[in-house]
């Protein structure tokens, strides 16, 4: 019974060990943190909506290995990202560069905010000029 329990516990433990990134961590916690940040910025080309940190596709594992090797070789973040962009294009970056082609992508939040703000300002300005004569809605002051 004890043996059975131990076996089940060991199997459960093995299950836990099957995390996506099975490579050993860096000795230096700062390097490990940097590694984890870099692999969260790179897209898995097979699964598309996952980073290579989240994906267990073999290509993602290979790209993680390359990131590791380049870090060990003393490459900067910029050099690592450039290495990936040279092979897979800007698509591999989760944070696309600000160039003419991506202007709309980067500008869209600002445009939407300005547009929404303009519409809100227009509506509020117009409504505030209306006399509050609706008997069904006496307004905030009357309640």
């Amino acid at each position: 019974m004890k043996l059975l329990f131990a076996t089940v516990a060991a199997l459960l433990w093995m299950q836990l060990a099957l995390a996506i990134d099975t490579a050993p961590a860096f000795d230096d916690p700062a390097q490990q943190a940097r590694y984890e940040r870099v692999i969260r910025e790179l897209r898995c080309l097979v699964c598309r909506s996952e980073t290579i940190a989240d994906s267990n596709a073999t290509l993602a594992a290979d790209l993680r290995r390359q990131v590791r090797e380049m870090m060990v070789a003393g490459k900067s973040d910029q050099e690592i990202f450039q290495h990936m962009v040279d092979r897979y294009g800007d698509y591999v970056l989760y944070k696309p560069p600000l160039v003419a082609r991506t202007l709309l992508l980067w500008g869209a939040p600002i445009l939407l905010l300005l547009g929404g703000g303009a519409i809100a300002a227009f509506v509020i300005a117009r409504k505030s000029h209306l006399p509050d004569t609706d008997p069904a809605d006496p307004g905030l002051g009357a309640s």
Partner: protein
Amino acid sequence: MWRFIIPIGLFAALAAFLFVGLGRDKEWLPSPLIGKPAPVFELPRVDDPAQKISNREFAGRPYVLNIWGSWCVACREEHEVLLEIARRGEIPLIGLNWKDELPLAQRWLQALGNPYVVSAFDPEGNVGIDWGAYGAPETFLVDARGIIVYKYVSPLRIDVWEREFLTRIKQAGAKGE
């Protein structure tokens, strides 16, 4: 008046964006390597791993590089087409055996026939990554200057071969290369 124009305008803009998105093939990524020199590799040969093969040996004439693996179901699907291309003999086919095991790769070529003049063995997958591969099969056309002129992802078909590859090979030939 504006209360109609604004929502309809917004709807039209959204519909236009979504419509453009509908027509795009999201499986197909544009390769940044088109128009750039083909990455040079030197790897063991699949048929004789004691010997090395480099694509430098093919410099000066056009060739096709096909990325395959015995684990790749779609490669099996395209294999007949590759054999047909090899039979026609218009251009040498080089295989890049990507992330495979040697006995499996050798058995594949023995059982299904070998369309390649040579296959390079890339078990680590680094050369495939250098070529920007993300899913086998992928097929590249390299011209006589060593520039990648075209890339096709997914199983090759003979009509695609004739339309996309042969026309480009003939154009390059007509330019006197």
